[in-house]
């Protein structure tokens, strides 16, 4: 009995096809829906910060230099390629590319920084229309993420009074 099963096992092994790809000797194109590195299109972005607010990894920072200039920075460090930013972007400014060979010793190769000239509405979360109530902006108005230390600022004590500052960089506005 056992011998027969060994023969059968050998048969399975002998007839086996191959699933190992020749990659990296030959290119291995990713399928159409593949979620690779997100690419931001500065020409389309309106700076609504919807992506920044819905990125589970907090990989997108927003910093308001002044009333009119907003900086959007994609950090490219622990992005999970989940594609949520591309989902919620109202302007389709983000594409989940098919790029997956992103290993690099310089993080700058992956980072993207967009400077945006904003029109003046600032209290509405720059007019982000959330697909559902659960995607609503958690931060409205001015955003002061910490670009230098690449940190998302969850709350600034200045405009949510009475609530504890959760992150380690307390900000004061005058």
């Amino acid at each position, binding site marked *: 009995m056992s011998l027969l*099963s060994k023969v059968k096992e050998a*048969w399975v092994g002998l007839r086996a096809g191959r699933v190992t790809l020749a990659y990296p000797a030959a290119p291995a194109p990713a399928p159409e829906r593949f979620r690779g590195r997100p690419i931001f299109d500065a020409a389309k972005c309106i700076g609504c910060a919807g992506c920044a607010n819905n990125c589970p990894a907090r990989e997108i920072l927003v910093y308001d230099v002044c009333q009119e200039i907003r900086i959007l920075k994609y950090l490219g460090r622990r992005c999970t390629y989940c594609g949520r930013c591309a989902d919620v972007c109202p302007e389709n400014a983000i594409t989940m590319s098919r790029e997956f060979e992103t290993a690099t010793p310089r993080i700058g190769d992956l980072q993207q920084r967009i400077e945006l000239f904003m029109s003046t509405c600032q209290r509405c979360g720059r007019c982000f229309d959330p697909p559902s109530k659960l995607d609503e902006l958690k931060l409205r108005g001015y955003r002061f993420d910490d670009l230098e230390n690449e940190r998302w600022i969850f709350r600034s004590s200045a405009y949510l009074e009475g609530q504890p500052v959760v992150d380690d960089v307390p900000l004061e506005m005058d």
Partner: protein
Amino acid sequence: MKAREKERTLRERFGAAIRRTDVTSPGRWCLYVAPEAIREVCRFVFREMDARYVISVGMDDRPYSGRFLVSHNFAFDRDGILAAFLAELPPDRPEIPSIAGEVPAAGWAEREFRDLVGIEPKGHPYPKRLVLPDGWPDGVHPLRKDHAWNEVPEDWDDEVTFRFDDPPEGCTVVPFGPFHPTLDEPAHFRLYVEGETVRGCEYRGFMVHRGIEKLAESVMSYNDIPMLAERICGICGCVHNVAYAQAVESAAGIQPPPRAEYIRTVMLELERLHSHLLWVGLACHILGFDTLFMQAFRIREPLMWIAEKISGNRKTYSLCLVGGVRWEITPPLAAELRGILDRLEKEWNEVAQAVGRDRNIQRRTRGVGMADARLVKELGLLGPVARAAGVDIDCRRDHPYAAYDRVEFDVVVELDGDVWSRVLVRVREVFESIRIIRQCLEKMEPGPIQTPIDEELLPGRIGLSSVEAPRGESHHFVVTGENNRPRRWRVRAPTYQNLQGVPAMIRDQTLADMTIALGSIDPCFSCTDRLETVDLRTGLVKVWSQAELEQLVRARKSH
């Protein structure tokens, strides 16, 4: 309604100790019990009403209700009810009678809420620290609401090492792990060995805590958490993703559209297929039978490709949001999936027939790693381990979710309770999964895949959800909260219960069988160790490897 009948039984027996109850939906039941009576109520429910123990959850509810809460969750599998037995505790003296003496399966969960929330289980038979690292100061409880998610206590000392229990008389200690060729993730078993025979062991795990629950409760939001949840596990990630979404839906009364439910079912079964194939391969690998290991992986690969085509990634599908799914299965994808299933069925049939009679595998696995029906009940063991011991439980049938109530399938049960039975259960479950996916593809009607959510979720609602992962039931418990995120989210992966059964499974077996016995529960340590603050992770691992390596090196030298 069945829950109401049970409520009557409990009220007759315990009177005023049952404070109030709430049947939130036909299969969900919350019951508030006086803390003094909780031990007796749980004993009664576990022993006389034959409920299955699921998990215990500790909560710091002081900012909302001014109290601490403990919830002991039980499942009535025959009646399709998931029940939470809640006790409210005063804020100044968070103590509750321990139920671990009556319900041994609760041993770990009570130690866990003692560590993390600081609720004292009075009279626990073995109140040793479970989750927190050994250098963590007493009296600091990271899951309390007044403890910030990124706060490391000042008197944290990463030099403190674990205090082992004394081995029994006449036994030698053999350390197994934290790093071992058959362990994919760090965990430490200290085996007490007499000659070649294992007499017992002490377990120290929780070395890869990632602070997931704390992060979710204090930083992320409802629709961020699914992407975090699926990273609890590298193999059954989609299970956690779906279980979380369902728990929130159950709390908030959201009904995902039927097509979304079918898609969830298809993806969950795809995941089970690849996981079972992977497991059979790994089990063969542990036994030294690498031919089949290679074949199992070859047969599995097309499943990964189709998953990538549907969801954009081989493994992290990012499938669910609260109220629906993100990826549509288009007709061409469905056709391709059907083709892959046909081929898989044929190839797996050949493997199943060959393996089913292979005496070499049987010699290594029969009578090894025994877990009988009694052990399954006592320790709340789950999934293939339970089904291989003749315990007929499967959440897909007992607590139907997604589209499982609309498809036909058999629950595979074997009787011997050894590793061989677990092999057979998994080998045969592959065919059931293929059957389920085919039916789903057949029955799916076109339609939306996401329910619109126009209002904020009401805070303070309790949601329970169980999903049958490849390894057993994954249970998620959610209390909705303010700020667009849950107040409490507790994940109980199947390995959490199954690992507690390992010491009993390997007792009086030979040392060489340890690896396959452990492998047979398909352990997933990072699922179990999902708690704790992130920053400490590296420190913790370092302490362990140093101590362990030193110990190992010294042991070598003295030879």
